[in-house]
């Protein structure tokens, strides 16, 4: 045994005086060791989840399809009037609710993934990022059936294949990452105090109605359209829907800006997570 090559580990009081750039590098370095554990944890959770369930995948689809069904019903019976949607309303709503579900899962998943392995956090020293990565894999995995439903819906409503649909995965990924970043930023406080999880549960459905999920974005001016302008999700959702249905064939500038901010948020979120995990572990006790 060559004792000179032993890795030196040093534990010192919290002193996170590192530069933005240095942090970025250390985060990227740590992704690799976390990777294998993340895949293992992801497989574990998925296997356990589906082994205990008869309906399986169906549960991923129920929330968006129920919401869509409700609004299709209301619209068909002329109880509400959402105006001109450009594409058949059922298709419009299905795309909207499924994309919203992608966002909502992104918001919830980081906190859920970390909280699920809370017991492990206070006992074992493993790369903490693995929990986030495994959460992200879960989101990606759950995208599968959703995209399948969207494909079926497009086929049913005879949407033709066109090149603008190539932008659609980018839209889905950005929506998912924006949700994930927001969820990630809320994870450290959310693990400490129960109010955060409750707050998210109440605000998310409410926020859906402030986003053009079940109705098209208004074209007139006014406070409502102003709200749409400042709601980043409105842009992401409308663009993605446009790409899929073929009514939009370029990437709007707002979309690019929001994507940039999403990446920035994601980085800040990961950094916050890294810094706060020891403090949270300490407060968990155990």
């Amino acid at each position, binding site marked *: *045994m060559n*004792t000179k090559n*032993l*890795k*030196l*580990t*040093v*534990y*010192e*009081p*919290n*002193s*996170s*005086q590192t530069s933005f750039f240095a942090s970025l590098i250390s985060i990227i370095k740590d992704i690799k060791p976390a990777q*294998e*554990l993340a895949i*293992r*944890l992801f497989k*574990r*959770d998925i*296997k*356990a989840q589906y*082994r*205990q369930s008869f309906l399986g995948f169906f549960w991923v689809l129920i929330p968006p399809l129920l919401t869509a069904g409700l609004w299709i019903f209301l619209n068909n019976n002329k109880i509400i009037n959402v105006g001109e949607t450009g594409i058949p309303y059922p298709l419009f709503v299905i795309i909207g609710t499924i994309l919203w579900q992608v966002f909502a899962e992104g918001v919830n998943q980081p906190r859920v993934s970390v909280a699920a*392995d809370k*017991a*492990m*956090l*206070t*006992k*074992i*020293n*493993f790369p903490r990022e693995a929990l986030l990565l495994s959460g992200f894999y879960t989101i990606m995995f759950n995208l599968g059936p959703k995209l399948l439903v969207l494909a079926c819906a497009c086929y049913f409503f005879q949407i033709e294949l066109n090149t603008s649909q190539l932008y659609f995965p980018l839209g889905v990924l950005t929506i998912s990452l924006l949700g994930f970043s927001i969820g990630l930023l809320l994870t*450290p*406080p959310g693990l*400490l*105090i129960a109010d955060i999880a409750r707050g998210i549960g109440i605000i998310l459905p409410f926020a859906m109605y402030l986003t053009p999920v079940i109705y098209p974005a208004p074209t007139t001016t006014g406070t409502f359209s102003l709200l749409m302008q400042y709601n980043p999700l409105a842009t992401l959702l409308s663009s993605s829907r446009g790409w899929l249905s073929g009514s939009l064939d370029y990437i709007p500038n707002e979309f690019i800006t929001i994507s940039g901010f999403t990446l920035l948020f994601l980085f800040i979120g990961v*950094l*916050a997570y890294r*810094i*706060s995990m*020891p*403090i*949270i*572990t*300490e*407060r968990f006790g155990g």
Partner: protein
Amino acid sequence: MKNNEILVNVENVSKKFSRDLKKSLWYGLKDISGAMLGIKPKNKLRKSEFWAIKDISFTLRRGECIGLIGHNGAGKSTLLKILNGLIPPDTGRIEMKGRVSALIELGAGFNPILTGRENIYNNGAVLGFSKKEIDAKLDEIIEFSEIAEFIDSPVQNYSSGMKVRLGFAVAAQMEPDVLIIDEVLAVGDLGFVLKCFNRIDSMLQNSAVIFVSHSMPQVARICSQIVLMDKGQAKYQGTNVSEGIDQYYSQFKVVNGNLSDSSKAKVDNFLINGQIPDTSNYIQVSRLSNLVLELELSVIEKYTTPELYIAFFDKEMRNVAEFIRNESESKLVNRSGKIILKLTIPEIQFSKGLYSITIGLTSQRGGEILFRQQGIAHFQVTAEHHVWSAFQLKGQLEQIEERA
């Protein structure tokens, strides 16, 4: 391989904790925001905070084992978490060389729905093994766990002992330079515990071990130095393991059983070497001197030939010795309801330490128990050497000339 390189160096490590949950969470949020903004935390205690660990220092070389002992809440587990890198110290510095592994929680990452085989991979991944490494060690792990028959059943059907077996079998594959062990071997049957200890023994030779336990026989067996913690501080620290264990025991208040009142029999008076036993000031008896016990008993007259029983317990509550009257000697006779006895035990060979005496009285040999009093009195044996076993035997050692 050099066997004396320092693998663990702990310098003045301290850690504060909050007693109040709401305050603790609030400080947590503040600390997070402070850390995000790069503000250095102050080392002052905030309201409701206290030092859970204060100024702990030690060094550990390869092949050495340090025992952390102390009563519940003394700060051992907190210190382990800091050493394991789960939480940062508030002051001080810790340096560790090489691969650090912890035997703190067995079976971390298990999912109850999945089979034992699948969970070997889950647990292994959490402990830092790659899939390849586990593939290579899978058979060995299953064999070590001795539960091959159930390896493809869901873990939720396992007994707690079986889960521990599987968890330890995975952990046993670690080849650490620094090994941290926290009371994990409490469950499991004797055979498996012995197997685990054999495995730990072989890990010991190549690593520096930090061992937390309440089991003093285990500490005495494997540790080469000891830190006795009390309220977060090192109350005793050194290489005299027996001395540390002795101080650990002296932290617990010894309670003498009261001279019990029973309708059938009772002890009226009890003397050790002519003195009345007292819990605050133990009667000292030097090793190899005579121990004289004097007893005054009241017994209901209808029991005419009662039988006395005396047992000695050490601090581990191990029954280390008993006195039984020889059958051939004349029986005890109860005429007036009072029996006065004097028992002399010549040249006691008890080792240094504190012992308690238990007295029982039966109506006759193997008959009805009239009364039994646990810990009726304590005495302290003084001796030159500190040994872990209860007896330090008298004997003579001679060297025999080599035969031609």
